[in-house]
């Protein structure tokens, strides 16, 4: 192989390659600088939990953070979650709560227009918001602060159910039994009477028999007592 022949090729390659390398480094540095700004921006984001956040902006931030070799989802979600923790619901202001739920739904359904990689962040944000509503409602219902049959609360509960968030709250078994009776569904009533209220039912039947006996045979009982007393 004649080195003199391929030397010019090496030279040309070096002349072109070296500036390209410098340019690439500069671009990367620029992107990293941009990303650093974005990170600062993301920490400064004032998440609006009641109005629509421009998701495109969040996606841009995410892209910038990824370029900076950071765990973009974690940075953005932690930022989001820290602010979410400061949100306090006014359960008397149902309109505000509805807006909040709508915002959460928007984040959850964002998966339909973003990639599967981006979807996780939005889904987690929406999920965290809905969990906060459901936890608050669950605690309030269990503490008796909120009436589960209030139409506004019922609306939120149904909306949450549509969003696949099912709240398990304590209910008064007796009240529930009456509601099932009203609906004409006797299976629940039968189940409760043969399980939870089994002993109560047996005692009730026995007590009823006792009362029945005393009421209907009181004369004979009194007579019996008198006969005994007379015999004494």
């Amino acid at each position: 192989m004649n080195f003199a022949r391929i030397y010019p090729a090496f030279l040309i390659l070096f002349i072109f390659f070296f500036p390209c390398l410098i340019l690439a480094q500069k671009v990367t540095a620029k992107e990293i600088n941009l990303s650093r700004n974005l990170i600062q921006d993301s920490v400064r984001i004032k998440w609006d939990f009641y109005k629509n956040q421009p998701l495109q902006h969040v996606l841009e931030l995410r892209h910038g953070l990824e370029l900076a070799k950071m765990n973009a989802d974690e940075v953005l979600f932690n930022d989001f979650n820290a602010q979410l923790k400061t949100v306090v619901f006014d359960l008397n202001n149902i309109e505000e709560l509805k807006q909040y739920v709508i915002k959460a739904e928007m984040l959850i359904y964002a998966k339909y227009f973003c990639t599967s990689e981006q979807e996780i962040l939005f889904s987690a944000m929406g999920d965290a918001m809905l969990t906060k509503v459901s936890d608050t409602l669950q605690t309030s219902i269990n503490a008796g602060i909120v009436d589960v049959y209030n139409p506004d609360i019922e609306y939120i509960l149904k909306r949450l159910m549509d969003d696949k968030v099912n709240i398990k709250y304590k209910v008064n078994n007796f009240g529930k039994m009456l509601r099932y009776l009203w609906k004409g569904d006797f299976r629940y009533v039968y189940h409760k009477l043969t399980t939870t209220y089994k002993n109560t039912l047996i005692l009730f039947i026995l007590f009823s028999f006792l009362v029945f006996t005393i009421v209907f045979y009181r004369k004979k009982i009194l007579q019996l007592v008198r006969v005994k007393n007379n015999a004494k």
Partner: protein
Amino acid sequence: MKKVVNLLCLCAFIALTSFKSHNILNAVPSAASFTMSLCKTGHGSEVQSGDLYNNGSKIGYVIALNRSSQHVKAKYFAFKQNGTSVHDRYDSWRSGKSVVLISSGAYATGFNNTDLPVGLTIDYGNEVNRNLDNTMDGLIIVEDVGGVRVTNIKDGDLKIIYSGTKQEKTINVNESLQKAEFMRWCADEKATVFQTHLLIYKNQLKFTRSYGGNESERKLLVLTKDRSGNVVHFIIYSRGQQFSLYDMANSSLQMLSSNGYDVIAAVNLDTGGLDILSTSTELYDCSNNSIQGTKNSDRRSMTNMLAYYYQ
């Protein structure tokens, strides 16, 4: 006078029969001791059924499903889908399959087939309930290939494998971001997931006697390994006697351990208003009677269903 005496006798008779029929007089002894007898075999000798005894008296059924050859598979219907009830979904799915058993699975908020399941639930990749219930530690994954995995949510070490890339990842579903990733994995892999009380995990009881719950009929799904390392699933059902969750789990653990089984996990299956258990015609108890739950007539109302089939 005679009438009064007769009436009082009648009262006493009714009281005694009521007490006896409701198991008050013969209440569960505090030290339950279970034994089992697997006397029937079916489905290529990979499924065995028989009786469950407490202190020598028959109180229910045991079904053992050997998964060593992976012919016995599990399928879970977590909820109705596109307006089709769980029972109707099961009816269309079962054609051409040799169904081993069906049973009620997770808890639901009510008795109607429209009532949602309690805890994180995903049906064949579709979200049913995304609300993680913090009072129940057991997360059960029924895989598309018929396997069942149980994980302790508190440990936060659920392992998922992406079938495409074969990449393995450890997930803590208590973390929102990781939970979202888990749900996407379920959607991609068509996984089915439900939540229930975790009673035994890695041979250890996961709760104390004080948190044992009310006494009731109990039905457990127990995942074990036998001495040869074969995975065997057990359904242990105390139809004839009521137990607290603690007594049921503790006695089942002792029974299986003494029979040489290593208990991977045990979870509670719902026995409340939809206490349903039905087996194929190849499986009976030791007296050749069919194995049935107390509410089998209500199976059309099932809110969810765990099925095992042989393929």
